[in-house]
């Protein structure tokens, strides 16, 4: 009942967050100026629109991936980063900047996607025949390795400027993205999201444990493949286009569960919508912080997310989750 009454809430919030994201910034652009043939109209079309669309897509796939990972691992503290895809895609992006490939068209994006692709291949090789534990251990090792290599690349950067460019990109931001970025990333995200949305029934079955799910005819190996490809494509593309934006995948499913109940299939779509709302809102806020430049979205999200995560752990220890 509660969930049904709230169903229109998320789409409405999303519309509001999207509209605000189109308007907000150092220069406010009201809808009347959107089609104008002046600087405001240009800012809207070339800067605000791609930025808002990307924020929406990235937030949606991160929220969705988080909901799927938590459902699959039956662990409310899991998030998409445990697979190591984000770290591997980040390594790809960092290498591209280091080698100067990011100057080529699609260089940065392609290199980050290659990183994500490598992590997908490795995960599939590691997890063959194994259960979720081997799969996640593999992901965490991959994540640590990619993180160490990323740090190594930064440490051998030829000059402070290159190092700072790499670090800036890593922190995650949606600043100065173009419509080409949207069109490049969107197909990967859409395919990944479609794969992830198809897992609902299998995730529900896992409520009964692995043997329960298998006895209901669920092919857990297939589910694992779908999740690796889904998260790999969606999160890989989101990192490739915006750097690493954390915490969305961890927090959003929790907020959604509190409203929509805990059935894994029921929170997939709402988590996608909620992730989009959170990311768009955070990205609007970082633009409004006074002063020169911008707080990086990744940093803002961590500052917002970390206290929430700690609160979650405290509640977890009391056994109330």
């Amino acid at each position, binding site marked *: 009942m509660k969930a049904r009454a709230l169903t229109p809430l998320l789409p409405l919030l999303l519309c509001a967050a999207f509209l605000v994201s189109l308007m907000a910034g150092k220069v406010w652009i009201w809808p009347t100026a959107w089609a104008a043939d002046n600087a405001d109209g240009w800012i809207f079309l070339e800067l605000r629109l791609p930025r808002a669309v990307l924020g929406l897509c990235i937030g949606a796939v991160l929220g969705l991936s988080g909901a799927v990972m938590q459902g699959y691992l*039956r662990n409310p503290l899991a998030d998409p980063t445990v697979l190591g895809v984000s770290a591997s895609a980040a390594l790809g992006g960092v290498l591209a900047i280091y080698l100067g490939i990011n100057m080529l068209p699609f260089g940065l994006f392609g290199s980050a996607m290659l990183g994500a692709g490598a992590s997908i291949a490795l995960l599939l090789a590691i997890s063959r025949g194994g259960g979720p534990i081997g799969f996640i251990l593999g992901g965490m090792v991959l994540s640590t390795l990619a993180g160490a290599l990323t740090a190594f690349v930064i440490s051998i950067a030829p000059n402070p400027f290159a190092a700072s460019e790499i670090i800036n990109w890593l922190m995650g931001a949606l600043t100065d993205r173009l419509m080409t970025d949207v069109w490049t990333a969107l197909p990967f995200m859409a395919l990944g999201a479609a794969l992830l949305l198809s897992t609902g*029934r299998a995730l*529900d*079955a*896992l*409520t*009964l*444990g692995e*043997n*329960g799910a*298998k*006895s*209901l*005819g*669920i*092919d857990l190996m297939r589910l694992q493949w779908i999740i690796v490809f889904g998260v790999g494509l969606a999160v890989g593309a989101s990192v490739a286009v915006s750097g690493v934006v954390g915490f969305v995948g961890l927090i959003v499913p929790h907020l959604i569960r509190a409203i929509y*109940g*805990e*059935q*894994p299939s029921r929170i997939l779509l709402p988590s996608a919508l909620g992730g989009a709302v959170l990311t768009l809102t955070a990205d609007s806020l970082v633009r409004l912080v006074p002063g020169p430049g911008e707080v990086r979205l990744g940093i803002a999200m961590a500052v917002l997310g970390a206290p929430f995560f700690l609160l979650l752990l405290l509640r977890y220890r009391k056994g109330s989750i």
Partner: protein
Amino acid sequence: MTLTVRNLSFAHARQPSLDGIDAAFEAGKLSVILGPNGAGKSTLLSCIAGVLKPDAGTASLDGTDISSMPATARAQRIGLLPQGAETHWAITAEALVALGRIPHMRGAGPSIDDRRAISAAMSATATKGFAHRVVTALSGGERARVLMARVLAGEPQWILADEPLANLDPGFQLDILGLLRRQANDGKGVVAVLHDLHHAVRFADHLLLLHEGKLFAQGSVKDVLTAANLARVYGIDANLFKDEEGAIQLFIKGKIKA
């Protein structure tokens, strides 16, 4: 309708192994698998359920090898109540029971057949009273009945229950055994792994006694639970007797000293 196990072997480092099991189960009977811890009871049930794939030999349903059946078709015919009563999310009792319909679901939502089966399963287990409460808030006895309803909702021809009485108080144990008994009387094949010999004596139509991965004895209660077999497999001094009402009971005197 018969479920036949032929020369079935299974070996895995993380699971008690099985060695050359030959057995047959009939529909309409309540079959009970007995044996000490680590004898391979759950392994055998998992192989029959198609959850584990045997290394050698077959478990077959009316002549069809279970491990080669399409997973959905298998799940429609064989329902498994897994060990441990796992329920990972705080979903409502009704939503949990509805999971039993997964092998039958085609479209997005439940069909009329699905709703009818869910309702019937909840009536049979007397769980309708708390249909909208979350399973994690239910008592152990209530949750056990909800999990049983989940299996019944799938309308399987065979019901396999792996230690369905674990952690239940005596009254709740009898509830669950009564439900299994009724399913067998309705013509379904029921196979349960039990630990309590007294329950096995009272409820089983057919017994399998496993010992160290091998089938030690199979048949009626009287044939299987002989004093010699109980001494050999469990190391206990026990025997069957008829009580004043003429029912067969088991009396355990104590452990046999080595």
